[in-house]
């Protein structure tokens, strides 16, 4: 047993323990926090599994944004779960045990964990690993697969994110404007001088880090998705400490919505440009005389599109939730 195995084992057991604690806990605030811990743990596990890019995303999304969204919702829907005898957990348990047993039976046919000869590793992965450097010219195989080989797929994902942003907006936007005057950060947050000053120091750092992640994604872990979330988190921090109306002044709502659409448009238009040049949709080698150079340009452009869309959609979602929160507070 080397250290890596030990760490893996511990992380997996902690995951299980955390999940069970989430089932048992009735305080939903605590449950959301434990879900955040669960996200951090799984992200650490991804690092152990060599999936640095995924760990990056999971740490920022699973541990950060999703916890924040859960908490905003809970601030509106109430903190405690109702304890009722109406449910029959026994039936659910039987069902769950049955499904679990079937799934475990299914795993018995799978090759043991970590075998290099497993069928998954023999399909397209060798080609990506062996040829991607010559064809795309960037060292991060994940980025080259994400942005170039499977660019069409990623385009679909970006559209899904955009659609989800529109959906949240449609659900939570009020026709009438919330009166901005009533918005004051709660008294104690107002007094947090230290917090505000540190946040003012941190926000430029965060934005700079976001830029680094955006443009370093070809050489290390990072890329548009991660950078978008990091960028958005800087705005979250600002709006949490200085109030939503202040944050709305910084990022204009209309501009944000237009930018979200523009990101998708940028991605799609790169595909159109390559079509115009007589290549396949999203085949970036059409963008320049030198194929590898064209790939570089294309990846840069679409990562930018992804980054813009993810940032703005996250901001839209978060602001929609917090805006709703205030309206709720007004009514009470």
């Amino acid at each position: 047993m080397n250290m890596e195995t030990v760490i893996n084992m511990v992380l997996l057991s902690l995951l299980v323990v955390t999940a069970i604690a989430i089932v048992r806990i009735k305080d939903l605030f605590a449950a959301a926090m434990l879900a955040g811990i669960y996200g951090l743990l799984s992200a650490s596990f991804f690092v152990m599994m060599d999936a640095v890019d995924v760990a990056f995303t999971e740490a920022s999304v699973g541990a950060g944004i999703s916890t924040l969204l859960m908490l905003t919702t809970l601030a509106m829907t109430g903190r405690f779960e109702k304890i009722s005898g109406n449910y029959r957990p026994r039936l659910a348990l039987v069902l769950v045990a049955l499904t679990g047993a079937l799934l475990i039976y299914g795993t018995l046919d799978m090759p043991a964990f970590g075998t290099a000869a497993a069928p998954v590793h023999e399909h397209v992965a060798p080609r990506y690993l062996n040829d991607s450097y010559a064809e795309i010219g960037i060292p991060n195989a994940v980025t080259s697969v994400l942005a170039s080989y499977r660019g069409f797929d990623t385009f679909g994902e970006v559209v899904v994110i955009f659609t989800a942003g529109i959906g949240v907006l449609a659900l939570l936007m009020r026709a009438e404007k919330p009166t901005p005057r009533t918005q004051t950060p709660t008294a104690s947050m107002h007094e947090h001088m230290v917090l505000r000053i540190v946040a003012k120091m941190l926000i430029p750092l965060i934005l700079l880090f976001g830029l680094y992640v955006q443009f370093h994604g070809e050489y290390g872990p990072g890329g548009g998705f991660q950078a978008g979330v990091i960028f958005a988190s800087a705005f979250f921090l600002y709006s949490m400490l200085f109030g939503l109306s202040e944050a709305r002044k910084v990022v204009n709502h209309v501009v944000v919505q237009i930018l979200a659409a523009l990101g998708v448009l940028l991605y799609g238009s790169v595909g159109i440009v390559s079509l115009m040049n007589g290549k396949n949709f999203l085949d970036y080698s059409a963008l320049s005389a030198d194929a590898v150079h064209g790939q570089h340009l294309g990846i840069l452009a679409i990562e930018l599109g992804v980054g813009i869309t993810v940032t703005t959609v996250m901001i839209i979602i978060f602001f929609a939730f917090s805006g709703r929160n205030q309206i709720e507070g007004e009514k009470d």
Partner: protein
Amino acid sequence: MSEFGLFNYWVVMLLMMIGFYIVIAQGNLVKKLIGLTLFQTSVFIMYISLGKIEGATAPILIEGVTLYSNPLPHVLILTAIVVGIATTALGLALVVRIKESYGTVEEDEIHAKDESC
């Protein structure tokens, strides 16, 4: 790491079932969404475990290393995570609207109100 065998996948199944249990057995809608997130994350863990090769390193190519883990699951899961948060946000938005219309987020109370209408 071969001591793991299939243990890794079994833990994933266990996590998945815990998430599943929360979704079907608990009445609070926010809790259900938390359970859904657990389920989702366990699927991610499953995929990423599939991509791991023993003794390999992260698929960011450097000189002198020949064995890398499989990058394909990483790509799939990376986008899935961000899409997952977007859909979770949509679900939470629905919960907020339900709370506004029904005044509760407990499943049985919502059913009761529906039937009394």
